[in-house]
C-alpha cells in the first residue's frame, strides 16, 4: 500500500471519528469557558444519540432525505433542554458542578434505555433507515491526491464540525457575546459590575453545551452506530472532555485534540491491515491514542490553566 493510499484509508475515517468529538468538545468549551465544569458531556451525547435515533425512526417516512438533518436538530433541541437540569443545579442551586455532571451522565443513560424499552419494548432500537452517507465534494474531490484524501467519501458532518470550530472561535474571540462569556468564566463579579447577567450567560453556555453535546451524540449515532442502546455512547463524552482540557479550553485547541484522537483511533483500527503496522500487536495500536495523549500532556503541552472561575458557583454579593 502506498503512502497516499494509506492516508486515503486513514484520513476520511479519522475525520468521521472526530466529528462527534469536535461537536461535543466545542460544547464543553462553551460551558467551561463560562465557568461551569461539564463532566456531563457523556450524558448529553447519550441524550443526543437517543433522540437522534428515535426521531429518525419515527419520521423517516415523512421527511425523506431530510431525515438525518432534522434528526440532529431535534437532538440538539432536546439535549439543550435536558442540559438545563445541569444549569439549574450548578448555576442556580450552587451545586457542586462535578456532582451534577455525574448525575447528568447517569440520568441520560437511564432515561434513554428506559424510554427505549417503553417505546420499542426492547433494549435497543432498530437500525435507522436514513443515516448520513458519505459523499464526494464536487470539484474539490477532483484535485489530485488532496482530493482523494480529504474530499472523497467523507461525511458532510465532518466538515460541519470543522467549520463550526472556526465559528465558535470567532464567536468566543471576536464577538461581544464571546467576550462576555469568557469574562464570566474568569471573573464573574467583574462581569456583573459591568452589567452582564452572569447567571444568564452561564445558562446560555450550558444550554449551548447541551445542544452541541446532543449534536455530537446524534452525529455519532447517525454516522457510526445507526441505532441506540446502552452501548451506543461509551466514553466518547469523556474523550470530548479530555479534548477540551487537552485543547486548553480553546475551540481550535479542542478541534486539534479531537482530530488527534480521531486520527489515532482510526490508525489503531486500520493499522491491523496496514503492512507497516501489521506486525505490531493490536493492543499497542489500541492503547496508542491514550498513551500518546498522556505523553503529550506530560511532555510538551504541560500545565493547562482552566478559566479561573471554572467550577465556582457565582453567588451575587459575595465578596
Amino acid at each position, binding site marked *: 500500500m502506498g503512502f497516499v493510499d494509506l492516508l486515503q484509508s486513514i484520513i476520511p475515517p479519522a475525520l468521521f471519528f472526530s466529528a462527534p468529538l469536535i461537536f461535543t468538545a466545542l460544547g464543553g468549551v462553551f460551558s467551561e469557558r463560562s465557568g461551569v465544569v461539564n463532566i456531563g458531556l457523556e450524558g448529553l451525547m447519550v441524550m443526543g444519540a437517543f433522540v437522534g435515533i428515535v426521531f429518525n425512526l419515527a419520521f423517516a417516512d415523512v421527511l425523506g432525505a431530510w431525515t438525518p438533518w432534522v434528526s440532529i436538530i431535534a437532538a440538539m433541541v432536546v439535549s439543550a433542554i435536558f442540559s438545563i437540569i445541569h444549569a439549574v443545579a450548578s448555576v442556580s442551586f450552587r451545586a457542586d458542578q462535578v456532582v451534577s455532571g455525574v448525575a447528568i451522565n447517569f440520568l441520560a443513560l437511564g432515561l434513554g434505555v428506559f424510554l427505549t424499552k417503553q417505546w420499542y419494548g426492547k433494549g435497543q432500537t432498530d437500525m435507522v433507515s436514513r443515516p448520513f452517507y458519505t459523499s464526494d465534494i464536487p470539484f474539490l474531490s477532483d484535485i489530485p491526491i488532496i482530493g482523494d484524501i480529504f474530499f472523497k467519501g467523507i461525511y458532510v458532518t465532518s466538515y460541519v464540525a470543522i467549520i463550526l470550530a472556526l465559528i465558535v472561535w*470567532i464567536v468566543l474571540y471576536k464577538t461581544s457575546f464571546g467576550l*462576555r462569556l469568557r469574562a464570566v468564566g474568569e471573573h464573574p463579579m*467583574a462581569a*456583573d*459590575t*459591568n*452589567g*452582564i447577567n452572569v447567571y444568564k450567560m452561564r445558562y446560555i453556555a450550558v444550554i449551548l453545551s447541551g445542544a452541541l453535546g446532543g449534536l455530537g451524540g446524534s452525529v455519532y449515532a447517525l454516522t457510526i452506530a445507526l441505532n441506540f442502546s446502552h452501548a451506543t455512547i461509551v466514553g466518547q463524552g469523556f474523550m470530548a472532555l479530555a479534548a477540551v482540557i487537552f485543547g486548553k479550553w480553546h475551540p481550535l485547541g479542542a478541534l486539534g485534540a479531537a482530530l488527534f484522537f480521531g486520527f489515532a483511533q482510526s490508525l489503531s483500527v486500520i493499522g491491523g491491515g496496514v503492512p507497516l503496522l501489521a506486525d505490531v500487536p493490536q493492543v499497542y495500536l489500541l492503547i496508542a491514542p491514550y498513551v500518546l495523549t498522556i505523553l503529550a500532556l506530560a511532555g510538551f503541552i504541560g500545565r493547562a490553566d482552566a478559566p479561573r472561575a471554572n467550577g465556582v458557583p457565582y453567588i451575587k*454579593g459575595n465578596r
Partner: protein
Amino acid sequence: MDYVIEMLNIRKEFPGIVANDNITVQLKKGEIHALLGENGAGKSTLMNVLFGLYQPEKGEIRVNGQKVNITDPNAANDLGIGMVHQHFMLVEPFTVTQNIILGNEPTKFGGVNIKKAEKEIQELSDRYGLRVDATAKISDISVGMQQRVEILKTLYRGADVLILDEPTAVLTPQEISELMEIMNSLIAEGKSIILITHKLKEIMQACDRVTVIRKGKGIGTLNIPDTTVTELASLMVGREVSFETKKAPAEPKETVLNIENLFVRDTRKVDTVKGLNLDVRAGEIVGLAGIDGNGQTELIEAITGLTKSHSGSIKLKDKNITNLSPRKVTESGLAHIPQDRHKYGLVLDFPIGENIVLQTYYQKPYSKNGVLNYKEIYEKAKALIEEYDVRTPDVYTPARALSGGNQQKAIISREIDRSPDLLIAAQPTRGLDVGAIEFIHNKLIEERDKGRAVLLMSFELDEILDVSDRIAVIFDGEIVANVKPEDTNEQELGLLMAGSNKEKAGAE
C-alpha cells in the same frame, strides 16, 4: 436643589447584620464628597446599593432630584453613575480595552470593533491624563495603572458621578497625589466624585465635604474647612484615638536574619530580587517599605522557603536556611504572618482549632506516632483563643465563619505562640479596623521587647513609620536605603520607594 445624587434613609441588611441603618448622603454637583468610616462600617455596602449591586430594604435614591430605582449596574450606568470597586473588577487575561468595553461593546458586522474601541479609549485616557496603554494586558500592568483603567471604565460609560472605593489603599504617595490631580481634572470636566477612604489626611487634602458612618449608622455630614483630623477620627471611631503607637526605643542585639546577595526569580523566570542584602537583629522591628511588585513578595517567599532562590545566602541565627523547605525553615525558628491570609494563612474549611496547629500537628503533644491527639489540639486552641481574644463561637467553628480581624488574630496567635527567633509580618493589618490594628501593632512591639527580630512588610507608610525601628526601602529587587523613622517622612520615603536613590546613584 443642586444635588446630583441623594441617598435618603437607606437601610440594607445582611443575614444577622444591619450593614446600613438609615444612612443619608447627598452629593452636590462638582464636589468631591468623602465617605469616612472604619472597616465594616458599611461604606462599600452603601455604594453598592447606589451602584445597583444590592437592593436596599428601605430608603430612597434620587438622581438630579428624580426618584430612581437602581435595579442593577446597567441601570446605574444609564443614570451616569460609575464605580471603581475596592477590589478591582478586572479580568486579568483581557486587555485594557476589552475590560473597558466589556458589557458595552461597539460592534461592526456583529463582531466587536476592537480597533475603534482602542482608539476611543486612548483618546479618553489622554484627555484626562490617565496614561493608560489601551492594548496592554491587565496581568502585565501595575496596580496604579489598573486603577486608572477602572476610572477609565466609568468614564467610557459616560459616568458623571464617580464612586471611588478606597482607591488609595494600594497606591504609593506619588501615585496618590497623581490620583488627586486626576480627580481635580474630572471635577473640572463637570463630574462629581464620592471618595471612600479611612485615611483622614487625604480627606482633608482633597475633599469638599465628608459624611461619616459608624457601625452602619450615618453620623453626619461636615464641610471640610469646618473640621479637623481629630474631630473626624473621634466621629469615626466613637472615642478619642491616639495616632502614635507608644513604644520604648529599640535595643537591637545580635543579628538574627542575615541575607547576602540574594537573587530570586518569579514564576515567569524573571529576576525580581537582585542581589539583595538585609540584616534584622534581635530586639528590633525592621520595616520593609516599597511599592508593590519590587520583589518584597518574592523576598519573603524565599526566606520562608516557599520559593527557591538561585543564588546568595539566607542565614537564620547563623544557620544557613537558603532553599530549605518551609517545614525546615519553620523548625529553625521562623514565624510568618502571610500577606494573603485566606490563600496562605488559613485552611478556611478547617475548624479554628486545627488551624491553630497547622504547622505543629505532627509534633508532640498534638500527635504521637502519627496519630492525632484532638484533646491536646483543642485545648491548645482554646487557650490561645482566650489569650488573643479571638471572637469565635467555639474552636470547632470553621475559620471561614470568622471575621477578617479575628482570622488574623488567630494566625498571629499561632505564629507568636511558637516563640520564633524571627517573626515576619507581611501586611498584618490589611483590611482591619482601628481596634484590631492597635492590637496587632502592640503585639509586634511586645515581641520585639521580648528580644525577637521582627521584619514588617507593609504598603502603608503610616504603619511603617509608626511601628518600625528601622526602615529598609526596597526598590527593583534591592534594598536601596536604610533609614530611621524619626529621620524621614512620607514624602522622602515615597521618593526612595520610587527609586530616586538608585537613579541618582546611576546618574552620578
